[in-house]
């Protein structure tokens, strides 16, 4: 009797749960048992399910962070959501990109601004994106990016995610050491790479030591205008080492920046003549030089006019830099990659590729050594060398091929290990040591990555307030991680969960990157960005971020033939028609085609493609665009909307008639 009633009770309970389960999960009553079944079928482990649970972002939900990554020689910048690792979009900068219409009628002027010596160079090699900062923290307003191949800097406005300026360095080519910003984005620092004669003039290699120059350029950023102000910018001449990656001081070290160098041996190669290749010559010495530059002092010197004008650009000469006490160097492990300043600005971490240690310098000790002139001598160019032992705080053996370091919020630092294909977690000392089990300056753990990691990026991990949580390992080789894609393989961007402590830092996602080669990336909290969803007003010119006076308005569409033989077309664009849709010009006419996208709905972008004349434009809601071309080929040309904008998208077209002479 009792047992019966109990079993009835149980049955009742079970059915109640089933009903509750049905109610809770909607039509499909899924249980963890079903999840287990799928996992078993697909051979997924608990760790795999955990990784999926940590990274999966359901449809309609948003990522927590956005990572801006360079794209290497694709010449763009990528925006990737974290933790989902979904590619959100690319931003065209140095390389024309037809989806955005960049360089096919739109942005041509900006691209042309950056042509070296006016020569069209239609690709770039982007390496190190730098988000604008306020008080050492990302403010989400601007993004800067270097072009290593031609020594250029691009400025991207993060309201509309478009490139606004490309500036060519007048002194040199190649700028692997950029871009990095000072804590309030006073300056965008563009470090060099290969030493070159000023203005890239022809100088035989045997005059390398005398006439080849190293340099760093400090571009003044005018935040109100959203442009680099070339007239307030200057460069500092440096020895013909290959100055490389740099990082601005912050907190206690605000006012300084730190810059690696390689090839302090001044190797110049000459393999055909039987001389050692540069890779050997440049790695001969056990140490290279960390450059310590007082930029606030340099700014004073520049403002006092103590500069030499070279190629029309003010340069603080090496002689002046030494005399003014604004440049010091100190030995660092050879062939270094990264130099990274700890969140409070008190420690500077350098990794030499060929030394298994990270070397940590104390800013306090550097400052003391500068003040007390604790020099171990001067280099061949007269630059005082701070005594290594008096500025080093610690050296930690982390593994083979250490490259770049990022920081967490909890006193952990992370260093990429290229040769080991791993990411090392180690502990900072000093004021970072509180509330942590591990001793200071100790290697804690190494997580293997696949494979050949270059840079790493931690969420806000190079700011004064690192978030931790996520680390992305930007791996150069993917080898066996993805399906074969021919001999050219995608990069592998691996997401690592660093929210745990100690040895808990698993890889939780592999993202194939098959459209470029990201080098460095920065990860910003998504809610710091204040992106526009549509342009603020109809007729908006993204270049001036204002309404353009020539923007065609509804009801004012026309074709205007001018006395000088040019033709202005004023066209409006809205779902699903162009007005006017018959454009007749004469062969040889110079045509300026003004267009306004009248749309106000989010995502109601129209494209504009014209055959034969190499024109494509992207017209985002409210945007004004002007394309200019010479109608040199007679004929009948259908132009059309290249975005699938509406149900009648295929009908959205017009004819360009070019009457023969």
């Amino acid at each position, binding site marked *: 009797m009792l047992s019966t009633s109990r079993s009835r009770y149980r049955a009742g309970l079970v059915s109640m749960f089933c009903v509750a389960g049905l109610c809770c999960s909607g039509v499909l009553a899924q249980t963890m048992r079903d999840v287990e079944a799928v996992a078993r079928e697909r051979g997924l482990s608990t760790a795999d399910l955990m990784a999926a649970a940590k990274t999966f972002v359901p449809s309609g939900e948003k990522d927590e962070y956005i990572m801006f990554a360079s794209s290497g020689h694709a010449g763009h910048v990528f925006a990737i959501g974290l933790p989902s690792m979904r590619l959100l979009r690319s931003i065209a900068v140095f390389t024309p990109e037809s989806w955005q219409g960049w360089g096919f009628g739109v942005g041509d002027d900006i691209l042309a601004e950056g042509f070296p010596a006016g020569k069209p160079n239609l690709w770039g090699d982007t390496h190190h994106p730098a988000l604008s900062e306020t008080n050492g923290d990302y403010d989400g307003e601007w993004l800067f990016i270097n072009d290593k191949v031609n020594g250029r800097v691009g400025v991207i406005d993060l309201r509309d995610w478009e490139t606004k300026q490309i500036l060519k360095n007048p002194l040199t080519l190649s700028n692997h050491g950029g871009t990095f910003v000072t804590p309030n984005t006073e300056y965008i620092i563009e470090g060099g790479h290969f030493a070159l004669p000023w203005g890239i003039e022809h100088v035989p290699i045997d005059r390398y030591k005398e006439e080849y120059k190293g340099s760093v350029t400090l571009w003044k950023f005018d935040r109100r205008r959203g442009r680099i102000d070339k007239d307030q910018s200057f460069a500092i001449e440096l020895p013909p080492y290959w100055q490389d990656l740099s990082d601005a001081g912050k907190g206690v070290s605000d006012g300084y920046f730190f810059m690696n160098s390689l090839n302090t041996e001044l190797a110049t190669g000459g393999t055909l003549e039987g001389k050692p290749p540069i890779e050997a010559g440049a790695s001969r010495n056990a140490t290279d030089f960390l450059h310590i530059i007082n930029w606030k002092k340099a700014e004073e010197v520049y403002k006092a006019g103590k500069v030499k004008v070279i190629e029309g650009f003010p340069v603080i000469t090496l002689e002046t830099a030494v005399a003014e006490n604004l440049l010091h160097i100190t030995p660092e492990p050879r062939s270094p990659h990264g130099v990274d300043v700890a969140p409070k600005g008190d420690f500077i971490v350098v990794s030499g590729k060929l030394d298994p240690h990270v070397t940590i310098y104390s800013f306090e000790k550097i400052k003391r050594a500068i003040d007390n002139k604790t020099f171990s001598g001067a280099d061949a160019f007269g630059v005082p060398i701070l005594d290594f032992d008096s500025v080093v705080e610690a050296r930690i053996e982390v593994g083979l091929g250490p490259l770049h370091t990022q920081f967490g919020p909890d006193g952990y630092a992370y260093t990429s290990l290229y040769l080991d294909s791993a990411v090392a977690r180690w502990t900072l000392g000093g004021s970072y040591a509180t509330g942590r089990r591990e001793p200071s300056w100790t290697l804690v753990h190494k997580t293997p990555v696949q494979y050949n990691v270059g840079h790493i990026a931690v969420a806000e991990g190079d700011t004064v307030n690192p978030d931790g949580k996520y680390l992305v390992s930007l791996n150069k080789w993917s080898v066996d991680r993805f399906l074969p894609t021919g001999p050219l393989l995608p990069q592998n961007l691996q997401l690592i969960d660093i929210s745990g402590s100690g040895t808990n830092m698993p890889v939780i996602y592999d993202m194939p990157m098959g459209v470029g080669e990201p080098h460095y990336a920065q990860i910003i909290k998504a809610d710091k960005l204040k992106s526009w969803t549509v342009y603020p007003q109809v007729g908006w010119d993204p270049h001036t971020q204002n309404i353009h006076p020539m923007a065609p308005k509804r009801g004012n569409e026309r074709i205007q033939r001018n006395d000088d033989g040019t033709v202005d077309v004023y066209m409006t664009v809205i*779902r*699903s028609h162009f007005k006017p849709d018959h454009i007749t010009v004469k062969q040889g006419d110079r045509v300026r085609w003004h267009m306004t996208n009248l749309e106000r*709905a989010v995502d109601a972008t129209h494209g504009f493609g014209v055959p034969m004349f190499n024109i494509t434009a992207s017209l985002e809601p409210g945007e004004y665009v002007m394309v200019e071309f010479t109608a040199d080929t007679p004929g009948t040309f259908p132009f059309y909307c290249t975005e699938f904008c509406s149900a*009648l998208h295929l*009908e959205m077209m017009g004819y360009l008639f070019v009457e023969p002479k």
Partner: protein
Amino acid sequence: MSGTLRDRILGPRVTPIMARTHSLRFGTPGILLLVARVLLLVSLFLPYWHMELQAPQYPDGLHMTAYLNSLSGDVAEIDGLNHYIGMRSLYEAAQFERTVGVFVMIAFVVMLELAAYIHTRWAVLLVAPVVFFPIVFLIDLQLWMRHFGLNLDPDAPLSSAVKPFVPTALGKGGIGQFVTIATPGIGLYLACGASLVLIAALFFHRRAYLPLVRAQAASGGA
């Protein structure tokens, strides 16, 4: 009957002593008329009518709000979509009504002000138009919907697919992939509230002044 036409319209006056001794009786109609005036004035600044359009590609929906003198919200977007079915721009609808709306409301307030001084049945003439105003608003709205929906441009892109129809002025409707939801705005509720208050005002007006009017008639005039 005696007295001037003015006296006959204004009706018997209330002496200060009577007003003091029967303050509730003679105060109520005036207070209610004042409440109605306030409600109407406030409604001028509030929406009278909302239309929401829901469709998959507009996750936040499209919203249009009609005030007595203006339209706001996603009107341009709705117009843009309406061109596919050949519906005229919403800005062309009720242009006269929107132009005079504010003046009509001011006239209403003046009429109610005057009504407070008239102690005869003539007060009804001034109050009644205001009472019926919300109904007139809705009828006008319905007529415009009908006019717009039934007079589609036959040359529009989708004219062969969408036949003329009458959009719903209040409640749920649909066109294409859009679900339309039309609801009264808070301004219209206030105007309706004013109507109810005015009906009450007329009731208390009659209770207060009818005995005086009758007494005056019985005494053959003052």
